[in-house]
């Protein structure tokens, strides 16, 4: 099998003839080449190893060679770093801007969390965001700039449920409107690639209802 890895803007090609029932991260280990990438949990719960595999952003530890169409049909795999963040080296990128955006959007609680039984499952799902950057990779609107991307919307949709401080709620919604709503064209491609299968569409529509569509607020429907 041909393994194409993007290193310093160039594609380097390696041969691999071993077992195909392995993940991309194990493939990188087996190639035994000095190549840098991030990893931590090796089981799909930390988000470190997100990279672009055969043109799709995925977690390398959860992506198996024998499930990849390009491997099955064309006997090849292409591995690239996420393209929207500054490159550190090889397959490692600097995602700090994603984390900074969470702070800029004031994503925290001022008061003690409120418990709403009907929202518990939703809040649980929204807390699963790995901050891996798969969603921003496929987003047609995300580039380094004012738009904060789906992770901020996902986190906000949980926190506006839990927050009772009116002033802070207002600020969170204001930031959402400015830094998310006014940039997102609702392609919802983020939902297709989220490795935790977070229903980002629900998060976004909830935030739009709460922050933008005043009719919902006036009717107190949400």
């Amino acid at each position, binding site marked *: 099998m041909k393994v194409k890895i993007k290193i310093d803007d160039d594609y380097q090609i390696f041969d691999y003839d071993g077992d195909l029932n392995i993940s991309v991260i194990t493939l990188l280990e087996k190639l035994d080449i000095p190549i840098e990438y991030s990893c931590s949990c090796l*089981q799909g719960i930390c988000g470190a190893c997100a990279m672009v595999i055969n043109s799709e952003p995925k977690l390398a530890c959860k992506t198996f060679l024998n499930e990849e169409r390009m491997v099955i049909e064309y006997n090849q795999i292409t591995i690239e770093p996420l393209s929207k963040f500054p490159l550190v080296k090889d397959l490692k990128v600097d995602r700090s801007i994603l984390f900074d955006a969470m702070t800029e959007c004031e994503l925290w609680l001022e008061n003690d969390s409120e418990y709403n*039984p009907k929202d518990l499952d939703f809040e649980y799902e929204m807390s699963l965001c790995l901050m891996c950057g798969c969603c921003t990779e496929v987003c047609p609107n995300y580039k380094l700039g004012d738009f904060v991307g789906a992770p901020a919307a996902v986190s906000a949709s949980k926190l506006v449920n839990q927050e009772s401080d009116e002033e802070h709620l207002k600020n969170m919604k204001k930031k959402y409107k400015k830094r998310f709503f006014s940039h997102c064209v609702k392609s919802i491609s983020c939902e297709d690639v989220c490795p935790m299968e977070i229903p980002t569409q629900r998060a976004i529509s909830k935030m739009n209802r709460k922050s933008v569509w005043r009719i919902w607020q006036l009717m107190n429907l949400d």
Partner: protein
Amino acid sequence: MVDIIVVGAGIAGLTASIKAGDNGANVSLISPDYSERSQSVMAMGGINAALNTKRENDSTDQHFTDTLNGGCKINNEKAVEMLTSDAPQIIDWLERIGTSFSRDANGNVDMRNFGGQKKKRTVYAGSRTGKQIVSALVSSCRKRETEGKIKRFVGYRFLSLIFTDENECCGINCIHEDTQELRSFIGDAVIIATGGYNSLFGKILGSTQNDGFATAKLFTQGVRLANLEMVQYHPTTVKTPQKRMLITEAARGEGGKLFVMKDGKPWYFMKDFYPELADLMPRDVVSRSIFKVSDGGKKDVYLDLTHLDEYTVKVKLDEVYEICDKYLNLDPLKTPIPIFPAVHYFMGGIQTDENHKTNIKGLYAAGECSCQYHGANRLGGNSLLGAVHGGWISAENAVLEKPKGNVINSIDEELESFKSYAPKDKSLQDTLSEISQIMNDSMGIYRNEGDLMAALDRLDNLDINVNAKYYDYLKVKLLVILSKASILSALERKESRGAHQRTDYPESDDRYKKSICAMYDDGEIVIT
């Protein structure tokens, strides 16, 4: 104002930072990566607290007793008393900062059964409890970052402690992983929250990032370690093409049962061995039982969830279902899961008292790297609790520190060492594999003097001149020292207790009802 340095951004480090910030400190939170990448997010099953909302007449006293019994009575009793009596307050705090715990029909946080405890005492959030707690702590920490109480430094790895001329700890030296920049952080106290020393045993269940560097370096700088021989083998782990992965104890807490085939039929052996708690015996006991019935791993042992309902398996045990589906291609509702014990947790580590102080003034440790709560075997659900509690208590005490001596700046020494290091030829991966092979060969579920002595000999003869970056180059040398200290501790404990089972000393012996301590004195490992 007091300056606190926290090393590690998992649950213990986050809690320590938040609590130190709330107690008026300026906090520098230093970690190789963001909290979302920490091992804490991998904790599945739950967090223990005797909330007594299940009409089972539970109490913090019973939690205390179960923890001591589970730890075979070599836990620090004072520390366990604080841990268990503070537990309900910790759950309350985690709820208030927004952790989405699962709830029961009455709206109370739900609790499930866990090993070594007769009462339902393990609060949970699906089977992603660690991830949910980290998510809430990160938001909470973010607020304090904006208020200027906490400053995060991401990408830095710990290199060494900095002392005053009165031997107080007052800072750390670090290296930035990407830029190789060396940097000092000076403060009034240091809290180490760097997790377990996974790399000693290779690619184990936890994070690849918890490498044991900090624990080993602290040891060489005069910090006392304890109970290094106490390594927990989690009973139910599965072999995947990637690594061994954990099937949470919650699977047995929700009714899962272990069996082995005998005379053509499944034999649910735990019920026969231990009629009262059966599959929910403490982990050391379950792991030994599996080892026995499988004839040391020759026969397959299974975890059976096929009799459980779909909601329990797919929702309450969501992470278990996902691991089976994604990595084993197996539906646990239809097929029993083949399991075997594997290294999971280190009860031993940096010895701390009930206030999380080490033997060095100004130096604290919290979370898995610190040793006091769990004795010879940790109960499931007590690690998340210990991490939050340790972070909290260490912060409350650390903010009272004020070093008296003058800082001895050691960054120049580090710089000198960095400049003079010359990578050699040997493969880093091969060397790390050799270390882990030696440890796995000698420090298994059952140990004996012959294997342990042979391991020491192999470590002495290991070529450690590796071709690696500065940090990894140092790490290999340090891991060999820590491995030796662990083996010497195992040799010293001439008895069987909890996770430490000696085939040549199969009984427990009251003379060893204590911690085995390790110190590093002038290049020599001294065990007491």
